[in-house]
């Protein structure tokens, strides 16, 4: 959680210093959800997120260096600089993205869960119990893809957990103004899966619920819908002036900061000392600064990278007038040939 917070704060700094551009959506305040769920996963389990994905990627194990480089648009980024803030992918850590349009990641997550079931039942990998987590917000819960996937996941008992990060706001649209029945967790039973509501500002409570939901999925009992009541301390993105939200509401949730709460809990229960916590803070600061340095010093992509990765099989660029495949022309890969 500390890494998530420090990283996001550094992102804001870097953005205003002109090191990263475009749409950057920060996760401050929601760290309990990411940590509470993802820290229970194995490496082969998959995570699918939205554009607010930096911390999901970090929680799953993607190195801070790789994420920061990606944000700076360098070749050393996790997606070689081709994805950006909203498209964090990692094959190694099974982070399946990073999606810019809300809701379009949920079917992808459903597909990953389908693969898990397929591996067990068709490919006979009997011990395959990989679980997929799909993270998305309150705004997405009014989108067709959400409902279509709840149906399919319950129908086929897919090993997936739908995690709603209900931070009450979709840019400037209050959840209450957009939704006929704002209690999202109630929509789970309508499709035949349990729907649970949890305080998303308390990492230990989230973890309890997550354990149950992930366990259910792993045992093959099917999907769960978990609604986490949480809040984003910053605007929707770094371009959002955040003028609509009531300061009283912001103060209410600031008082429930998950990091402060956990620190208090650890000290009160003698699980850690002030010094320990300060040491963690310091270490994280070093990690984040190192990430920035690494990203700064990394090279920008050269022009020849433009056409790489468009196709897995570059024969897809077709046969040129001279009879050779375009991809065999060195000028083509250098980016200087006529497309």
């Amino acid at each position: 959680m500390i890494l998530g917070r420090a990283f996001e704060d550094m992102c804001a700094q870097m953005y205003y210093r002109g090191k990263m551009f475009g749409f950057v959506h920060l996760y401050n305040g929601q760290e309990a959800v990411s940590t509470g769920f993802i820290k229970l996963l194995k490496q082969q389990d998959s995570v699918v997120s939205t554009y607010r994905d930096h911390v999901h990627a970090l929680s799953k194990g993607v190195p801070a260096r790789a994420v920061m480089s990606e944000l700076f648009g360098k070749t050393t980024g996790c997606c070689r600089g081709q994805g950006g803030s909203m498209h964090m992918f990692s094959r190694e850590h099974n982070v399946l993205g990073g999606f810019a349009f809300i809701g379009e990641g949920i079917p992808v997550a459903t597909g990953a869960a389908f693969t898990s079931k397929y591996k067990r039942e068709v490919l006979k990998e009997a011990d395959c119990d990989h679980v997929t987590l799909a993270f998305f917000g309150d705004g997405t819960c009014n989108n067709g893809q959400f409902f279509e996937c709840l149906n399919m996941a319950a129908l086929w008992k897919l090993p997936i957990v739908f995690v709603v990060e209900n931070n009450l706001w979709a840019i400037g649209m209050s959840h209450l103004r957009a939704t006929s029945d704002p209690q999202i967790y109630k929509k789970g039973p309508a499709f035949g899966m349990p729907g649970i509501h949890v305080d998303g500002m308390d990492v230990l409570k989230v973890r309890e619920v997550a354990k149950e939901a992930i366990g259910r999925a792993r045992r093959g009992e099917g999907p769960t819908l978990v609604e986490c009541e949480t809040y984003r301390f910053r605007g929707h993105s770094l371009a959002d002036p955040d003028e609509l939200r009531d300061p009283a509401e912001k103060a209410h949730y600031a008082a429930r900061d998950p990091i402060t709460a956990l620190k208090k809990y650890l000290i009160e229960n003698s699980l850690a000392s002030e010094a320990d916590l300060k040491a963690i803070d310091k270490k994280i600061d070093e990690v984040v600064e190192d990430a920035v340095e690494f990203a700064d010093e990394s090279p920008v992509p050269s022009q020849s990278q433009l056409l790489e990765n468009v196709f897995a099989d570059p024969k897809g660029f077709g046969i040129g007038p001279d009879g050779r495949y375009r991809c065999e022309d060195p000028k083509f890969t250098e980016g200087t040939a006529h497309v």
Partner: protein
Amino acid sequence: RKGASVAVVRSDGRVNLNPKGRRAQQLISNAVATKSDSAAASSSSKPGYDSISDLEHELLLFEALQEGLEEEMERDLRVCVMGEDVGHYGGSYKVTKGLAKKFGDLRVLDTPIAENSFTGMGIGAAMTGLRPVVEGMNMGFLLLAFNQISNNCGMLHYTSGGQFTIPIVIRGPGGVGRQLGAEHSQRLESYFQSIPGIQMVACSTPYNAKGLMKAAIRSENPVILFEHVLLYNLKERIPDEDYICNLEQAEMVRPGEHVTILTYSRMRYHVMQAAKTLVNKGYDPEVIDIRSLKPFDLYTIGNSVKKTHRVLIVEECMRTGGIGASLIAAITENFNDYLDAPIMCLSSQDVPTPYAGTLEEVTVVQPAQIVTAVEQLCQ
């Protein structure tokens, strides 16, 4: 019968003898030459060799698609099908008939009616190791999946920096049928052609249907395979042996000298019908089925343009922003110096396909128009 002549029974019952086309097809250097290709090619140059009938079998186009799909599913356990009514119902055009019984309900998945989501599910499955074939019951329904096809199917390999591949095949019948109404008569190839990262192919004969299906499934790229509602009952003899068709190559249907006619899918048959009339009138058209709608095979097309210097494009998609429009641009850019006349393009009218038969008939290009166009072009 001797030799490599093939009788193609059209869906309206007329028989098209196409000896030149078939032989020429086998002489095309196939980037993935298979045993059957070379065996058949050598047989056509060896007089008296009459064992073709032992090495071939006759079937309808939808059966060819089914055969291709079935063979790939046997070959690779990761290949699976998902779509509406593909399982127990056997597919609304019977392409997946019998497959659910053979491979089980999970490998041939009957989905709820949620195109956007099950296409996305196919993409997620492809990213995590499977090789799904997603069927749109009618291509037009895939408009609902445009979000997933454009954003995820085409782009995820790139935005993930090459980490995830999407070896998915999206297929279904499209095109103008027999009075199916506007929404069931759509041609989506023009809408999808701008999406970076996908390939599009259109099949037109049982031979290339099976070959393209198999090649698409084996390809690591996302491929959209366009079938046509009226071509499913075409009959042809195809090789028994395993073969695939090159995804990026065009097909020479009829070599000629006077004019290059570029076409694909059902219009190929209208063109061949017009070709009979044209031959009687003394013309020698060269007919190429472009097959690969994205990317275009500029080698086959270019060689033809360099030979005939006149180009006619006959397509079924609409005039505005269609495949023909892109093809004209590509040919003009690359082969302008070889053209003796401006490229002519015959496309469907820019109208929603009407229900009335008489109106529907004039929405698409008819053979008589093709004959007139060639005559005009060759003046």
